[in-house]
């Protein structure tokens, strides 16, 4: 029997269509069909100037907006060869980790919901709301923040942010304990997840899987440790791994990652350097409002950046950051003008989704929901 799963199936969390060939309750072939959310972001980026692309990167993976901003900004900064002040770097790390918490919370809530555990959803979204409030405080936006820009941050961090972040993060460890009491030893949860959706490490590397899925099968690959960016090497944290490679191991890895992210945010909060929050290169970042209104030179730079955009030296760079879903790479090519010649986004969900057929085929259809949920893909991230 052929069964069409999606494009409007609730457990795909987006618009994904999977054509399943069934024999009884066993899936013989599973063919994912993507592209329903393709919006041509890479094409659009070529028509905008360098700074204008940042808001587009928000819209790729709507659960990891700041990490997308960061990947793009780092790639362009590589070409520009500019130094980012320590305060901006630490702030980027802190916000990235809050974003990772946000993404993992949405994943945990919806994944548990898919498998019938409704209450975890309410707990996770309770904390997620607090994180979104922090983002709103920083940038004025809850989701599409565009807060990390080429050359630093978009705005000065708001007054009193330390107290708000401290209040949230100091109580967060006990919140993770709450999720664990709901799920980790729950017999129904264990039965639905243990031994389900196994893929071997070799298969995953070969099909392009990255991130927590790979780490749940024993690999330690994590761009934050392997190729540290934005001063991640200054932070003390571990990369949680498991060896089972099943749905439960992925759950366990992500829960441990939340604890590690909490550690990083606490360190960033305690050791936040003082100083400027953006680079002082007038060719790259907009001048301060005050200077722009009082100094002729700043006004000219402001005018140039707003009308023409910044010029980026010709060249190409590939920058990898660790998104909540895995390796997020930005390959940017410049021809020396004020518009990118090519922006390619190596999005983690696209790579991960290639393993879907390996994971579903020759297994029971009832397990497909658990397996798909454990991949944690975002369809905006797949289709771009």
């Amino acid at each position, binding site marked *: 029997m052929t069964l069409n799963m999606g494009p409007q199936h609730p457990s795909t969390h987006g618009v994904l269509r999977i054509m399943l060939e069934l024999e009884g309750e066993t899936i013989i072939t599973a063919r994912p069909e*993507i*592209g329903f959310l*393709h919006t*041509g972001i*890479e*094409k*659009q980026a*070529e*028509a905008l100037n360098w700074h204008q692309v940042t808001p587009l990167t928000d819209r790729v993976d709507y659960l990891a907006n700041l990490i997308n901003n960061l990947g793009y900004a780092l790639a362009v900064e*590589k*070409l520009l060869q500019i130094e980012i002040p320590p305060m901006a770097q630490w702030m980027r790390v802190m916000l990235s980790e809050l974003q990772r918490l946000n993404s993992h919370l949405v994943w945990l809530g919806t994944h548990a919901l898919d498998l019938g555990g409704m209450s975890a959803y309410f707990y996770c979204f309770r904390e997620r709301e607090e994180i979104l409030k922090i983002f709103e405080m920083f940038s004025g936006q809850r989701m599409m923040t565009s807060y990390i820009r080429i050359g630093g941050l978009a705005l000065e961090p708001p007054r009193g942010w330390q107290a708000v972040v401290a209040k949230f993060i100091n109580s967060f460890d006990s919140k993770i304990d709450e999720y664990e009491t709901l799920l980790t030893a729950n017999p129904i949860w264990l039965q639905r997840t243990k031994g389900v959706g196994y893929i071997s*490490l070799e298969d995953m*590397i*070969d*099909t*392009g899987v990255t991130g927590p899925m790979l780490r749940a099968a*024993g*690999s*330690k*690959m994590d761009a934050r*440790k*392997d*190729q540290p960016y934005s001063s991640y090497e200054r932070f003390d944290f571990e990369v949680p*791994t498991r*060896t089972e490679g099943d749905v439960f191991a992925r759950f366990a890895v992500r829960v441990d990652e939340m604890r590690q992210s909490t550690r990083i945010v606490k360190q960033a909060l305690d050791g936040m350097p003082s100083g400027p929050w953006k680079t002082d290169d007038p060719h790259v970042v907009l001048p301060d409002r005050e200077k722009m209104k009082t100094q002729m030179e700043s006004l000219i730079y402001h005018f140039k950046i707003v009308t023409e955009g910044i010029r980026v030296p010709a*060249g*190409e*760079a*590939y920058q*990898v950051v660790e998104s909540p879903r895995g*390796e997020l*790479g930005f*390959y940017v*090519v410049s021809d020396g003008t004020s518009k990118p*010649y*090519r922006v*390619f986004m*190596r999005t983690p969900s*696209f*790579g991960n*989704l*290639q393993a879907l057929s390996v994971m579903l085929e020759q297994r029971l259809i009832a397990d497909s929901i658990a397996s798909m949920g454990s991949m944690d893909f975002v369809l905006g991230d797949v*289709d*771009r």
Partner: protein
Amino acid sequence: MPPDAPENGSVSNPTHLSLKETFSGAIFETTEAYGEIGFVVDPAKIVEISSYLKHVQGFERLSSVTAVDWWPREPRFEIVYQLHSIRRNLRARLKIRVSAGTAVDSVTVVWRSANWYEREVFDLFGVTFANHPNLERIMMPMDFEGHPLRKDFPIHGYRYSYRDE
């Protein structure tokens, strides 16, 4: 201990040299910029070189395949392969230059992850891949005409334009 734990500090490496020795005529350019290493190689030898890089040099991951359209320059397309060795904690970029209408040998036989990336390049740039298991459009609808990431493709499209409204 997982077998692929990265050995830090092995970044500067003899990959350049050994590649040049093994495929003397097929390596057109080697680049090193911003700490990233890259090779421009002969399109006819792409599968052979990929296989060597995977099995001998340890690049077990193909991170992505994409293309850059340098229209109207010839050869028009640059196909860019981003490689990654988890064991050596090293990344490299492999590039080939081809004209429109030339079929590129698919590297899906070396890395399975090339499958969707090559389909995407085919869909958005119109570069065909020989020996690909399932070369059809992936992002755009099946009845779409043209290849949107080509530089001569207008941003509003040909058929679905809102320009005059």
